[in-house]
């Protein structure tokens, strides 16, 4: 039906004028994502009769999308015009993306969450507009915490360890599940410990600062969760998001680190823990702050598109990232807005209360190391951190090895 609609639009439009611009955009199709987008595009084309938008649905897996983009862009294709980009890709794809720095005011980027704008800024140039955002969160069992006399979720990592120890022992379930398999998700988790312990992999200028006592302490803490405190099962070293969620959702864990998407699933009708779940910011470390890794998706424009297509693409991006459309997307597809003012709309709070209550988490979410060769850096972090988690090397040695490899990768 939708295809037919677009096609008939196209024919109609060609019959009457040549002032029409046709653009293509890529989109994911997770959950209700695509359905929501089609409804939004229908509205956009009604408002802009001179523009026709066709959608190229992408595979769900981020890695597969990445490989497709690489093929399109390296071949110098002018399609797709609008690219949906994972938060970690802008530096890698920057040479192929339209420079949007001059359009800062046009897109009202000053009204966006600062972290998301930072993630689309590559060496001072803005190459995309944030579309929706994501951040690491702490899920906890409200009912169990109450039962054992805790009024609030843990404020610090030490509190989490103490609560998890006590409750998991008494209940005979796991204490804390997270993502410890060797893949991209481990980088997200590791960064959160680093930041909350007050350190980082690279500093603002891209210098490698990871080899320091705080980083070693942070990694030691992750290792201790498994082997010393015993609140995380040794199996976390093989878990990804869904493995952790399955355990938590079946009622077999007190705490879980995961993304916002798990909220509606944990509270679905057939979930054993429906209504018993709370969400909080991830605990503070000795560095004294809560920290969350930034996830999410941005919209960029293909630099090979024609000027006319680029103009139309800009209009489309402005429309899709407007307050009204972000609210529509958040309520209907459960994807967090990137504009700050949307969080003040009562409708959002009604549909997804945690988005508003945890606004601070989303505003303070931090990006993973920004570098052109992020894929290689991520691979290095994954391997060395995982080697420590599986006790093949000490945390100290792992951090040392990581520094050595990063020096080679960044030529420093």
């Amino acid at each position, binding site marked *: 039906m939708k295809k037919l609609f677009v096609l008939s639009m196209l024919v109609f439009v060609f019959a009457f004028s040549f002032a029409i611009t046709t653009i293509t955009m890529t989109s994911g199709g997770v959950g209700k994502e695509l359905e929501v987008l089609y409804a939004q595009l229908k509205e956009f084309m009604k408002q802009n009769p001179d523009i026709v938008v066709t959608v190229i649905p992408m595979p769900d897996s981020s890695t597969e999308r990445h*490989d497709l983009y*690489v093929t399109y862009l*390296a071949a110098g294709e002018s399609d797709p015009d609008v690219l949906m980009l994972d938060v970690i890709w802008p530096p*890698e794809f920057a*040479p192929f993306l339209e420079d949007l720095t001059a359009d800062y005011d046009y897109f009202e980027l000053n009204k966006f969450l600062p972290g998301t704008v930072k993630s689309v800024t590559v060496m001072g140039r803005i190459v995309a507009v944030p579309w929706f955002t994501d951040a690491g969160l702490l899920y906890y069992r409200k009912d169990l915490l109450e039962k054992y006399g805790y009024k609030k979720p843990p404020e610090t990592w030490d509190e989490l360890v103490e609560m998890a120890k006590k409750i998991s022992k008494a209940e005979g379930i796991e204490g804390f599940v997270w993502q410890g*398999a*060797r*893949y991209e998700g481990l980088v997200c988790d590791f960064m959160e410990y680093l930041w909350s312990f007050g350190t980082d992999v690279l500093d603002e200028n891209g210098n490698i600062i990871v080899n320091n006592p705080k980083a070693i302490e942070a990694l030691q803490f992750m290792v201790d969760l498994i082997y010393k405190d015993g609140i995380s*099962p*040794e*199996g976390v*070293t*093989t878990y990804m998001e869904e*493995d952790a969620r*399955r*355990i938590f959702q079946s009622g*077999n864990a007190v705490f879980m680190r995961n993304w916002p998407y798990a909220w509606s699933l944990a509270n679905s009708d057939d979930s054993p823990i429906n209504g018993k779940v709370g969400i909080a910011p991830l605990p503070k470390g000795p560095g004294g702050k809560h920290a969350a890794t930034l996830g999410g998706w941005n919209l960029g424009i293909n630099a090979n598109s024609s000027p006319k297509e680029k103009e139309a693409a800009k209009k489309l991006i402005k429309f899709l990232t407007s307050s009204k459309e972000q609210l529509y997307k958040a309520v209907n597809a459960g994807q967090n807005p990137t504009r700050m003012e949307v969080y003040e709309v009562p409708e959002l709070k009604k549909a997804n209360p945690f988005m508003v209550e945890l606004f601070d988490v989303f505003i303070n979410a931090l990006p993973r190391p920004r570098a*052109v*060769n*992020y*894929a*290689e850096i991520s*691979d290095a972090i994954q*391997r060395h951190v*995982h080697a420590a988690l*599986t*006790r*093949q090397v000490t945390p100290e040695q792992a951090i040392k090895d990581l520094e050595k490899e990063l020096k080679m*990768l960044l030529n420093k």
Partner: protein
Amino acid sequence: MNKKEPIVAFWMIFPAIFVISVIAFFPLFKTFYDSFFDFGLNPMFKREFVGFGNYIKLFNDSRFWAAFKTTIIFTVVSVLLETVLGLLIALVVHQNFKFRGLVRAAMLIPWAIPTAISSQMWRWMFNDQFGIISKLYEALGIIKPGTPILGRPGLALWAIIQVDVWKTTPFMALLILAGLQLIPEQLYEAAKIDGANMVQRFFKITLPQIMQTIGIALIFRTLDALRVFDVVYVMTRGSVGTETLSVYNRSLLMDRAFTGRWFGYGSSLSVVIFLLISIFAIIYIKSLKLQID
């Protein structure tokens, strides 16, 4: 002989030669060629000739040697187990018994399931919380409760070998069974008359007669095992010391194609895998005196 015949013959086989050149030899030579350059697929990167530089770098790469060792252990252990088990199974299903056809068909099922799917299935069965194999091993006292089989250095490689043995033993059994069926019954009858017992019949008749078949089967399996990728990638992605040469190569050629200058380096690793496989193939052919043509 008609003078035209060779010319006609040439044009008859020309399409085959052409197709093979395009799909087999061209990529092979291109990989050889690429391995002498330092470059990435990003158009920003310039191609730089480095001679044997990539190979020298490769032989100083500890990650390469770790993957090399893992590949060899995986190959030797899994092929050995598969051959022995395959031979035993072939000897059993070679006998006449009820439902023989059914058993022969059923035993092929593990081999018929695509590896990507069966590996995922095994990954879940090895899960520390709900995996049935984990629970079984716990009940038998082989592992302690809560041990993540695929997250333990050492254990994970054995688990992967186990899956590979489960998957490919049927293939070995099938090939050896075909060899067994070619042995003339008269040989056994004559041996029986001469008073040879079962063990003697096996070592003096069966084994020498199927040596050729086993040789061919060994080549197939060894070459496959040396470039093993899917079962490892799905189950552990090469973590906890299970990274094989092909898994490392994927990381160089796919993940890093556009972000670094690794493409030539990855090509040199491809060439090394190719040479390694060739060496094994030659050793087999020579030592088993196989007739290829």
